[in-house]
């Protein structure tokens, strides 16, 4: 089933040049991470004297969530050595051939961790980031470098990591508050 979905989607590669180019940009290791990070830079500066600190804490949660998602993915990758779909299927690669294990998708975990962390505070912006994370995951399957369950697994890891980081920040709320107090003294927050 997993392989059939990859083969079905990947069969579209080469049919519409513009769509392939769009997928080639989306599937990249750089587009979504940089776009997401730039949104965090904007979020850090957004708000009034009263609302800005909460936005800055959201930014910290997002950064922590991404780090956590990355760490969990690396640990699972070390345990579950699933080969990439292009190893067992005849696919047209729209991306370089990664050498690390396929499950769970690190890109999905990072994308969904970022989206979830922001969604907890800003529904609309979080929704945009969820859409970006979904497109990133879709592009990875279309390009033949992930199975859908890799993306699904990565999404679960990302959501769990973001919730765990948000919970940790709530538990240790004095740490970000203290950090912001110091950053405010040098006009960085």
């Amino acid at each position: 089933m997993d392989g059939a979905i990859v083969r079905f989607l990947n069969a579209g590669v080469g049919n519409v040049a513009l769509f392939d180019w769009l997928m080639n940009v989306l599937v990249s290791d750089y587009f979504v991470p940089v776009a997401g990070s730039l949104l965090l830079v904007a979020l850090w500066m957004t708000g009034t004297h009263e609302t800005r600190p909460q936005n800055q804490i959201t930014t910290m949660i997002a950064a922590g969530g991404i780090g956590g998602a990355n760490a969990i993915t690396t640990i699972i990758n070390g345990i579950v050595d699933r080969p990439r779909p292009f190893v067992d299927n005849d696919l047209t690669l729209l991306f370089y051939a990664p050498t690390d294990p396929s499950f769970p998708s690190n890109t999905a975990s990072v994308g969904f961790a970022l989206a979830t962390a922001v969604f907890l505070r800003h529904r609309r912006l979080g929704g945009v980031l969820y859409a970006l994370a979904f497109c990133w995951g879709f592009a990875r399957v279309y390009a033949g470098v992930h199975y859908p369950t890799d993306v699904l697994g990565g999404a679960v890891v990302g959501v769990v990591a973001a919730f765990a980081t948000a919970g940790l920040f709530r538990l240790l709320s004095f740490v970000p508050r203290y950090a912001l107090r110091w950053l405010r003294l040098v006009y960085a927050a």
Partner: protein
Amino acid sequence: MSDFEAAYALWVALSTLGVAQYAAVSNGLRGIVILRRWPGATKVCSALIVIGAFAWFFISEDRNLPDTGAGLDGVEQARWFALAATASLLVQLGVSSIVNHRWGASHGWDPTEERWPPAGLTWLERTTFAQAIAARIRATFGGSR
């Protein structure tokens, strides 16, 4: 620094310039807006810089390079992003402090009445980064009294 790292850093620095200027002008942080007198133009220019930087990075070359080869892995990408974005922000703070110096001098903080200058980004609605830091240093080391 490889060509790819340089291109990545330039892309991030330019995009950060656009995003930060757009966010600053949209949130009234006039002390860090380089074109302070032209908020509308700042928004348009910022958006064009971001779109242009993304278009240049992805159209000029195929950027899907192996992260174990000429591309960047996650850690390298985070490092280059932090470096380029910080450099871009520092340049913006420096340039905006210079071009807004005269405007920022009337920031409304009187060291003879208040011991400490206001803290936080909010004060950059009324003064420049350099003047805010200078006031903080003066207050901390007692030179203002």
